[in-house]
């Protein structure tokens, strides 16, 4: 083997890798002849080629995963089926191939039925048919104008001294998806800006439905050595677009522990505060633009922005310090204008449980065969084949003794189906009910609890299956009640847990994430959910909380640990409540209680009874 042969092998290996990366092929078609030329036997060449393919394919697959293109589960099914297919193929080959084919790289041929020319023609023809198929797909695809786009970017901090190049920290942009982070100081002594730690994440998901997100989280932020301080700055911008429309979202951005010149401030979006006579502070400034055709959605948000209007701390007027900038952009695939049609019911569609007869729908004209997918049928990141239209559901849960899941005041909107970057399918499968941490959560119906425990997204969570089979999901709990045991029967109104901010809600406002999965839709798995909003509105009117039902339990029973023979005791449910409920800011003590307490202290101090 000469140096030239080795150089040629390296070059051909590189070319095979490029082809593999672009076209998703293994590269064996070049590896095998190269290895044969280096003097390996055919079987050795085939085996060694497979070993070279493993890192090549792995590299491509890992890169493609970062770009959001890899369908890992489909790949696994394909690969396993392909191994089975090769088993069959080997048997077939020994039956139909000619001995002479051994020379041409088939280590497995033994029988003799098909002449080489036939094999050659058949496989050439098959590949030619595939070529025509692919060319047809390319011809049928929408033109180059309609390719989708997606980009997200995030920047933890940037200091722009007037007249100088900006100095930034931890900036990322997608694609490819990326996360960076760490502490940041400017200048080296941190006198202008100091950030304890931070992460910046950018994701982009291209496709027929495209979505992008940029987010940053910075902790322990201090500007001008404590003149502006924030415990945390969380900034998130999302954008999604599909055949049906485009939406931008900056809703989950928040700043906690904001203290400006020694004064605690409540950060509200878009607010501007003066900084003495030397500058201004903008809090949570955001922009969101949505256009319709061609689809688009851009959103951007910045956490803290200090602008100097006079010289300060040695920096000239015009200097700008920004903490937390996120932006997202999504341009949808501009397929031909969608034909609006009625959502179709799948087979086995839920029966109408309402008593009133439904008017029969008049027949609609059928869309042409090549009509694009109807609006609302796409989910960012999901291949169109697995997406079905949401079936119509008319089950009336509110009549069956259901109660509202949160005891006490709770705020909620109608965000079912909104963009959510971190959950399966990237859409909001339920509703967020915002309430103070520690607010009791009630079983909405008589039923059985299951899947009680931790989940990285839901945090401390539980599921309730009512007697009709409908399933309800409670997430982000701060604490469970003693009733919260998998398999436990509960009655409507029983306290099962308490509002919190665990899981991916950490750092945001405490809330209950609540989902409704009607029994008729359970066949669709996690995506078989309906908008909770109308149900919540109906249930709001009846709050049949029954604390008594869940107040007592016995040590050693109900799966709770307790030594044998331990005294049977009532649960201190109140202790659970106090653990979870922050009452430090509560008002409304018994009138005069403070005076009485102080008077008692004075009496003790002066020695009078």
């Amino acid at each position, binding site marked *: 083997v000469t140096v030239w042969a080795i150089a040629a092998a390296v070059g051909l290996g590189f070319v095979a890798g490029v082809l593999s990366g672009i076209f998703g*092929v293994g590269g064996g078609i070049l590896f095998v002849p190269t290895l044969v030329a280096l003097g390996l036997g055919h079987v050795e060449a085939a*085996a060694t080629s497979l070993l070279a393919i493993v890192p090549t*394919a792995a590299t491509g697959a890992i890169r493609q995963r970062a770009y959001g*293109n890899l369908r890992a589960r489909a*790949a696994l099914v394909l690969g396993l089926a392909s191994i089975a297919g090769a088993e069959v193929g080997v048997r077939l080959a020994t039956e139909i191939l000619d001995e002479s084919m051994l020379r041409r790289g088939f280590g497995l041929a033994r029988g003799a039925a098909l002449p080489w020319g036939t094999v*050659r023609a058949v496989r050439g023809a098959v*590949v030619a048919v595939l070529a025509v198929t692919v060319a047809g797909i390319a011809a049928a695809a929408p033109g180059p104008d309609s390719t989708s786009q997606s980009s997200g970017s995030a920047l933890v901090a940037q200091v722009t001294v007037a007249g100088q190049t900006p100095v930034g920290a931890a900036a990322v942009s997608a694609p490819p998806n990326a996360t960076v982070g760490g502490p940041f100081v400017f200048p080296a002594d941190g006198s202008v800006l100091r950030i304890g730690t931070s992460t910046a994440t950018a994701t982009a998901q291209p496709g027929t439905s495209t979505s992008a997100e940029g987010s940053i989280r910075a902790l322990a932020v201090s500007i001008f050595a404590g003149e502006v301080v924030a415990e945390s700055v969380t900034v998130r911008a999302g954008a999604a677009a599909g055949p049906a429309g485009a939406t931008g979202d900056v809703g989950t951005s928040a700043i906690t522990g904001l203290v400006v010149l020694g004064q605690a401030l409540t950060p509200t979006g878009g607010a501007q505060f003066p900084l003495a006579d030397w500058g201004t502070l903008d809090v949570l400034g955001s922009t969101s633009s949505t256009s319709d055709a061609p689809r688009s959605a851009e959103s951007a948000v910045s956490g803290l922005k200090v602008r100097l209007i006079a010289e300060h701390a040695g920096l000239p007027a015009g200097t700008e310090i920004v903490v937390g900038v996120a932006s997202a952009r999504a341009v949808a695939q501009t397929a031909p204008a969608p034909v609006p049609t009625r959502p179709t019911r799948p087979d086995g569609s839920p029966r109408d449980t309402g008593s009133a007869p439904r008017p029969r729908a008049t027949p609609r004209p059928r869309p042409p065969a090549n009509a694009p997918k109807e609006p609302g049928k796409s989910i960012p990141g999901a291949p169109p084949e697995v997406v079905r239209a949401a079936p119509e559901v008319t089950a009336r849960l509110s009549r069956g003794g259901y109660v509202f899941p949160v005891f006490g005041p709770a705020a909620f909107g109608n965000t079912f189906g909104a963009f959510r970057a971190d959950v399966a399918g990237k859409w909001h499968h339920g509703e967020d009910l915002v309430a103070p941490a520690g607010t009791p959560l009630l079983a909405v119906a008589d039923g059985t609890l299951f899947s009680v425990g931790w989940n990285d997204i839901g945090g401390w969570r539980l599921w309730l299956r009512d007697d009709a089979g409908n399933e309800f999901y409670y997430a982000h709990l701060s604490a469970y009640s003693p009733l919260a045991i998998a398999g436990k029967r509960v009655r409507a109104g029983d306290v099962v847990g308490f509002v919190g901010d665990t899981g991916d809600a950490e750092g945001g406002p405490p809330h209950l994430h609540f989902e409704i999965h009607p029994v008729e839709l359970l066949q669709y798995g996690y995506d078989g959910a309906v908008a909770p909003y109308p149900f919540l509105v109906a249930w709001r009117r009846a709050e049949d909380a029954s604390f008594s039902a869940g107040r007592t339990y016995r040590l050693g029973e109900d799966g709770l640990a307790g030594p044998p023979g331990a005294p049977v005791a009532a649960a201190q449910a109140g202790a659970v409540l106090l653990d979870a409920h922050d009452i430090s800011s509560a008002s409304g003590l018994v009138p005069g209680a403070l005076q009485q307490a102080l008077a008692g202290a004075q009496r003790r101090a002066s020695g009078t009874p």
Partner: protein
Amino acid sequence: MIARLVLIGLVAGVFSAVFGVGGGIVVVPLLMALVGLPSHAATATSLGAILVTASAGVALYAVRGDVRPGYAALVGIPAVAGSLLGTHVQQRLSGRTLTLAFAALLVGIAVWLIVW
């Protein structure tokens, strides 16, 4: 969809064993035609499938002692570098361009298979 994936996998496996050409060349077009994946997703998923089959194949051959790691490194290491370049280039291509390029590649392979 699972049934279609299994079918595609079986066809690709049989084809590669009988005709000595297979893997991505068959999987990518079938993923696009039968499952409807866009071209970028089809090529990415094909790579994942190849990773599974090649790993299994290596294990079988290694038991028989046919694998020559030195030679594999000789072509495989430059191929990894090439793959990084290839995936990077692929991201710059639109779905339509990639599909057309794949069709051109298939035409070339078909001609080569018939003439060779």
